């Protein structure tokens, strides 16, 4: 896997023997194995259940069976017509993708100012960024809706029901944490290059785009991914701000799940299949960006 590539060269095995080879070892081997095995089991058993249920018959899942009595691979085909997943996935990718990018861009520029320049109230801003995480979404739902609705009637543009509503909301909600990630990352960057550039007369904008951004890719990827996940997983806002055409995958899934509650045996198999399909893009995204993800949190170190 990509891990090998990112292993810092310092940690490379030197030929001098035991001391160096084991010098970074943190845990005795038996303990290490125990931890990895226990955690893998804890993660994989429920996961296996989802996978098995996704190819199981609905009655069998309902009766609490772990292993399928008969194989229903067709769940993976049927689900595309039962749930409007295709449209949902497209919407989710568009909304979460653009949120991730814009949010990371805003985060890096805000963090740059917050880290490199002193001004009154800087600490308050920083603390507020963390503090904003304590605002419950259930409190914000109605006011944000009111706000969009009044903006719409004041400006004559329809926001609710379009992807813009989600886009704006998610960017804003993701921004505090993304900015935090960038702040901690930028703190770890050396200043020499910037200072040299400034002496050469470079503007702040130039320094940001030519020096900071190229040096901070790992951090940017991390803030982008957290922003992406926020948009990808939200149901609360998306369920009231979207219509049939702008519905995200998470809402499509939730709608599907909720409609299963009444009337007949839920389509458990298809529901699990749909869940896995919706989780897949994010897992892939994680795999692709994993080395940046770990590195991105690292460079600054959260100190």
């Amino acid at each position, binding site marked *: 896997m990509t891990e090998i590539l990112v292993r810092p060269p310092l940690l490379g095995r030197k030929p001098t023997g035991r001391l160096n080879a084991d010098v970074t070892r943190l845990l005795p081997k038996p303990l290490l194995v125990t931890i990895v095995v226990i955690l893998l089991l804890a993660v994989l058993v429920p996961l296996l259940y989802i996978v098995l249920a996704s190819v199981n018959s609905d009655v069998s899942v309902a009766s609490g069976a772990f292993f399928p009595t008969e194989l229903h691979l067709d769940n993976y085909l049927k689900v595309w017509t039962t749930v409007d997943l295709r449209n949902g996935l497209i919407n989710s990718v568009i909304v979460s993708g*653009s949120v991730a990018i814009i949010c990371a861009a805003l985060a890096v520029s805000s963090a740059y100012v917050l880290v490199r320049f002193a001004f009154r109230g800087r600490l308050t801003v920083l603390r507020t960024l963390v503090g904003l995480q304590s605002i419950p979404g259930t409190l914000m739902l109605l006011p944000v809706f009111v706000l969009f609705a009044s903006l719409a009637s004041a400006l004559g543009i329809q926001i609710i029901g379009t992807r813009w509503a989600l886009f704006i909301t998610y960017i804003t909600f993701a921004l505090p944490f993304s900015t935090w990630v960038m702040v901690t990352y930028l703190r770890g960057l050396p200043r020499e290059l910037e200072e040299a550039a400034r002496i050469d007369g470079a503007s702040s904008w130039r320094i940001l785009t030519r020096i900071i951004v190229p040096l901070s890719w790992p951090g940017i990827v991390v803030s982008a991914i957290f922003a992406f996940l926020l948009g990808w997983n939200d149901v609360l806002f998306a369920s009231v701000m979207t219509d049939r055409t702008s519905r995200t995958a998470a809402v499509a899934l939730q*709608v599907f799940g909720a*409609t299963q509650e*009444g*009337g*007949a*045996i839920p389509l458990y198999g298809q529901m699990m299949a749909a869940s896995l399909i919706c989780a897949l893009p994010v897992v892939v995204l994680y795999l692709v960006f994993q080395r940046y993800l770990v590195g991105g949190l690292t460079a600054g170190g959260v100190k």
Partner: protein
Amino acid sequence: MKARHALGAIAGIAILGLALQGCAGSTTPAPASSSTKIDGTGKTLDVMIGANALYPAEQKQWFQDVSDRFEKQTGAKVNFETFASANDELTKIQTSVLSGQGPDLYNLGSTFTPTAYSTGAFVQLTEADWKKIGGRDKFIPGTLGISGPDAKHEVGIPFASRPFVMAYNKDLLAAAGIDKPATTWDGLTAQAKKLTTGDTYGMALAYADSYDPWKFVWAMSLQAGNPILDGKKARFDDPTTLKAYQTYFSWLTDEKVVDPSAIGWKNAQAVAAFASGKAAFLPMTTSTSMVTLDKSAVAGKYAYALMPTVPPGAKTTPKNGKPATSIISGDNMVVAKYSKNQDLAFALVNMLTSASSQTSYQKLFGDLPTNAAAAKKLEDGNAALAPVIDSAAKSVGTPFSGAWGDTQLALVNVVVQSIPSLSTGSLKVSDLKAKLATAQTAVQAALDKAK
């Protein structure tokens, strides 16, 4: 750097998507100027309707058909939006009411009509409005029972009827020597007891469902003369309500005629248990369960019957009791006051409640018609549905109060909070009374606020 390219690619796609969305989003319909001849050319009517879990594909097709037909008639398109659950439905209504924008027409669960009415955000139908949808007379009178507080103040137009009945397994009943389902709750309990053998149970019930339980308690209370909300007074502390809860719980704890797992079941799981032939009765179900049952192990072996109408502990309906078989259940359509396309909305309702539309809707989705002519036709040709149609006529509306939402919540909450002690079989009467007292306080407060 790979990451940069990947991000760049995502950025490109995303921004393109947003731009496209921008174009699509700017086609808001222009305000309508109403005239006698409805011309909706170029307009779009937004309709909010519950998502159909059983027939998602058919529903999508139906949306398209309706829109096409409507366009032919008026030139306007219909854009359907769906909500997934009752919670979703409420949230959508609230946000729309609050912001004064949203769908033009809503298709609501009947028990939400009082709540919708209390917001004052939906059109109260005048004589002229009724005329636009083909007259009040075209509907089965019973289905109008929850359209408004009285005939002069109605907001809800009946669109579909889904009265509750009881399904029973003919084979199991015959094997136990029972010729027909009981008509009293005590009788049903006795039959269920007789039918419980091995891993087959007398009844399939969903104690953990968010909606099922209150319907039992309400029906039993009403049959004993207590409508739960009596004018401006809540009556949770009434002995009839206590008796109703005790009966509902005793099936699980004392009589043991239900699968012990039912304590955690939602409605769907109860249906599943009945469908697998593991339960003799499935009370509190609708004709929509037909779809599942006809594909299941009990296909051809089950029938519907009216639910008991004689309250627990009685042999006949008491003097002030009402022999209700079901709540008035189904869908009502309401037109938003903020809508600029009200006439179009009425035209659509007229189209959807015509005898032919209703008949084809019944065939597609299993909901009974509210159109009297369509119902008559259906009754003549369908023996299996006869009890369901009969139940529609014997349904009673839940109290028309803005506090009904809270009442329903409180009724279910008593069950939810009792479940832990039910599972250990130790629910004391005093505990139950305390829970009812709490519910009484909460609902009375809501009722006092009601306008």
